[in-house]
């Protein structure tokens, strides 16, 4: 044996640490995706979409139903559910939230809160409070990386989340609708006078937020469970990420998501699984105390 026992224990600890880090980064990427939808809507409409969590739950049930009822693989479901949820988000903002809010921010908050209650209760009525999961053949596959064993679905989720973030960035930077979204986020009147239909842009933004959730749901379902309340837990984390990264900041959501994923994973490792989320909320409070605008926030 080339190693002393003490040295071996250290190596083992490093492996465990690296594995927790990798797991945190992989989960964090999906958190980032969920936060991306939240921060996008906040950046443009300047309100928190309280229906975000319920929409995620609905998307996860949609993935479950597609798999359970129609035998559609969750990764294939991305191609169907993403446009579907885009359309759903678009229609919700254009025909429900927008008209019901009469241009007042506090009304938008109340309407999205009401929506979340409606969606959650509809899901409860349809699925009761049972927890469901799906079985996929690759559910327990791992990728070996040196001494690390990375669950395949999480590796896929990691890269897919970054792909979606890159696509979203490309849309915002290089397409007319993306530029219109950025224009409306800062100067509504100037946008309208440039020929940009502001209500349409709001709805597209909501649609993109919902589409992010559909992708996240497809990436989560191979390893997570779904019940009618599951979205709330994710959105609480996503909200922390948005505050940490800076409200409305897309790079902030990405970096913040990764940080939060790692913090959750490491505090789970050191303080025990059930306390994993405590680290997140410590960070949340710390950020609010020290840097309320977040890492990438423009306004203090």
């Amino acid at each position: 044996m080339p190693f002393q026992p003490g040295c071996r224990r250290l190596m083992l600890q490093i492996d465990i640490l690296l594995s927790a880090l990798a797991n945190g980064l992989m989960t964090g990427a999906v958190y980032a995706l969920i936060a991306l939808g939240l921060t996008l809507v906040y950046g443009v409409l300047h309100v928190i979409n309280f229906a975000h969590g319920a929409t995620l739950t609905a998307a996860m049930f949609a993935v479950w139903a597609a798999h359970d009822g129609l035998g559609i693989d969750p990764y294939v479901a991305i191609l169907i559910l993403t446009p579907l949820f885009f359309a759903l988000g678009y229609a919700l903002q254009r025909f429900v939230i927008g008209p019901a809010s009469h241009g007042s921010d506090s009304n938008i908050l109340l309407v999205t809160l009401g929506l979340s209650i409606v969606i959650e209760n509809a899901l409860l009525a349809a699925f009761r409070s049972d927890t469901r999961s799906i079985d996929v053949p690759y559910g327990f596959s791992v990728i070996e990386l040196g001494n690390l064993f990375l669950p395949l679905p999480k590796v896929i989720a990691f890269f897919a989340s970054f792909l979606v973030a890159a696509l979203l960035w490309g849309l915002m930077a290089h397409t007319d609708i993306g530029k219109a979204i950025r224009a409306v986020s800062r100067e509504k009147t100037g946008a309208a006078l440039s020929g940009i239909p502001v209500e349409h842009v709001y709805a597209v933004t909501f649609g993109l937020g919902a589409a992010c959730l559909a992708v996240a749901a497809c990436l989560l379902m191979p390893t997570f469970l779904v019940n009618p309340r599951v979205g709330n837990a994710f959105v609480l984390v996503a909200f922390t990420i948005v505050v940490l990264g800076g409200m409305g900041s897309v790079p902030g959501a990405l970096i913040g998501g990764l940080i939060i994923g790692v913090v959750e994973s490491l505090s789970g490792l050191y303080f025990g699984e059930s306390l994993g989320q405590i680290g997140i909320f410590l960070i949340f409070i710390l950020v609010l105390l020290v840097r309320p605008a977040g890492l990438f926030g423009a306004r203090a």
Partner: protein
Amino acid sequence: MLEIRDLVAGYGGVPVLRGVSLDVRAGEIVAVLGANGAGKTTLNRAISGLIRPDGGSIGFEGRALAGLSAPDIVALGLVHVPEGRKIFPNMSVRENLELGSYRRAKANRAANLERVFAIFPRLKERTGQSAGTLSGGEQQMLAIGRGLMAEPKLLIMDEPSLGLSPLLVEEMFALVARIAADGLAVMLVEQNVVQSLDLAARAYVLENGAIAMAGAAGTLKRDPTLMTTYLGL
């Protein structure tokens, strides 16, 4: 081209404009003058669809604008460069200009960009710069340039010289003259009376939400009551 009849408009049921009638003909520069609070900006907002008139009519090239949204009105070729510029501060100069053709003349975007850069060479030097970091004069040029990107038939400019140094005011009026020389109709809303009347063919004086004087710019310029009575100068 633009025909406004007995226009009544205001905010929350309180009228600001109390029966305004006004015309702009094709290829013409028309000045709309008036002291602060006379209702000039309200008039522009009603024409461009930002607020709904409470009465009267607005017609553009024979078409009633009632019920049209601001983007629909841009699509017809009636473009309003607003007071306070309203550029997109978080975006580059080039992106601001590109968005000017979001709804109209999109196919000619590249050619119109070059046209705008020819008129405002200073914008060309700053294509990548964030618009919020431009000087006031440059922001005004950007706002006008963004308006030109839609190939307007009628351009409404709300106080383009506001907040500029005297030298820049001169430059701005020269630029307006140059833009109008291409045959574009311009409705120039201003408080700079002398320069506006030099440039315009006709002028209206707005006072308390109503037209107090109207006529050929040359005639108005010689009217001794203009400055003292209506413009509070």
